[in-house]
């Protein structure tokens, strides 16, 4: 290599192509975009964690003996898989962005991976205590399509009258342990408490409260309850426009006669 010739060629090339250094803001912006995407992924992941905690805390631990054959089955069937996958995706995005920051390569993969998981968990727990998980579930229950079958599969699980599980909203006054209930498909049920004198309905039984019930179908539109629990995740579902309409009609005494029972998994929302 002839050093002077090399310099000359280089200078000519730079002049010919009219090359000049890219501006500083270009690199700053690139760096900020990576950090901003990482922070956004952390926030979304944390929201997912808060929803997972919310869904899992109220997934029916107290009735698991009545609803599932074993603890293992209960554990597997009640995991909020959608949110776990969603969280996994955003943890990966966070990890990817951290790895691609200016000094991200200096840290071992496992350290960045552990940090990404822990940061999402810690912030997600904080979000849960601030009520973010509940808020998100309420909003999605009210507005998201496929809520009952994808976002909160417990809704589908609990809407299976033939298997002895019913979910719905109380549509009228509770009189002598009896009340009307509208299920997610809009069917109206007459629910009665068990004839057993030991059974007392708890305080949450009032108009507009969403509940889930363990019991059995005793007639086409009648369900005898053995256990009634307030519905916690999924409450927003019963505030959706359709459900509000049903409820208002019922309150006006305009409940339609119950249609035939729908197949158990016919949860369109």
């Amino acid at each position, binding site marked *: *290599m002839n*050093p002077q010739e*090399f*310099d000359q*060629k*280089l*200078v000519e*090339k*730079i002049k010919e*192509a009219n*090359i*000049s*250094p*890219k*501006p*500083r803001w*270009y*690199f700053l912006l690139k760096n900020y975009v990576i950090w901003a995407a990482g922070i956004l992924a952390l926030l979304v992941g944390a929201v997912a964690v808060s929803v997972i905690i919310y869904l899992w805390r109220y997934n029916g631990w107290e009735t698991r003996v009545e609803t599932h054959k074993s603890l293992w089955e209960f554990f597997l069937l009640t995991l909020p898989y959608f949110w776990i996958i969603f969280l996994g995706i955003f943890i990966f995005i966070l990890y990817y962005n951290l790895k691609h920051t*200016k*000094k991200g*390569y*200096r*840290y*071992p993969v496992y350290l960045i991976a552990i940090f990404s998981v822990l940061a999402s968990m810690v912030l997600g727990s904080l979000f849960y205590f601030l009520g973010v998980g509940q808020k998100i579930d309420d909003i999605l229950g009210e507005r998201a399509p496929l809520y009952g079958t994808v976002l909160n599969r417990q809704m589908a699980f609990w809407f299976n009258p033939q298997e002895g599980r019913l979910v719905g909203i109380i549509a009228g006054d509770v009189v002598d342990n009896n009340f009307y209930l509208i299920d997610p498909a809009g069917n109206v049920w007459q629910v009665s408490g068990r004839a057993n004198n030991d059974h007392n309905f708890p305080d949450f039984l009032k108009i507009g409260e969403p509940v889930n019930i363990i019991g059995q179908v005793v007639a086409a539109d009648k369900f005898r309850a053995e256990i009634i629990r307030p519905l916690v995740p999924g409450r927003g579902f019963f505030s959706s426009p359709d459900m509000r309409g049903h409820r208002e009609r019922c309150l006006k005494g305009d409940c339609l006669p119950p249609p035939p029972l729908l197949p158990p998994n016919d949860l369109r929302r």
Partner: protein
Amino acid sequence: MVDDLGAQNLSDAELVKLTLENQSNFLYLVDRYKIKLMNYVRRLTNINDADAEDILQEVFIKVYLNLNDFNPDLKFSSWIYRITHNQVISSHRKLKARPEGYAVNIDDKSALNLAADIDIIAGTDLEITKQNINKVLNSLDRKYRDILILKFLEEKNYQEISDIIRKPNGTVASIINKAKQEFKKEFIRHKIIL
């Protein structure tokens, strides 16, 4: 523009700053690195002089274009070696390097350092040892060869290598150890064949 004498006393980072103010100063950086980088390019790949010069020209154009991206927390030499390393890999794919082996330019000191560190017997004839080292380096996997070149021929420390190949220090240490083992194994094998 600074004069030649003034430029000699300036650090790389200062020259980068001055280049951003006056583009003519870029040639001081070019002068400072072109021979070192040419050697590095020739050690990494088996292309001819003209192709190596083309690669080097591309490297300096990239450096020039990205001067504002240089982070003074990093050594300028690590940054420019990283750009060179990436450019060689990218050009290597395009040029489809010849299969006959690499003309790794090894000086006496590097050869002795490598032999001592890997615990191989250098032999009385240094030229033969260098040829053997060359053969063994050529037979190694690219990942191991590149890192041994950086460590023993370019004499970079772990942190610099980490910044050049963008891997954590621990990973660098582990690749170097593995590369040394592979080198020793291959060295013994080649000596037997010879």
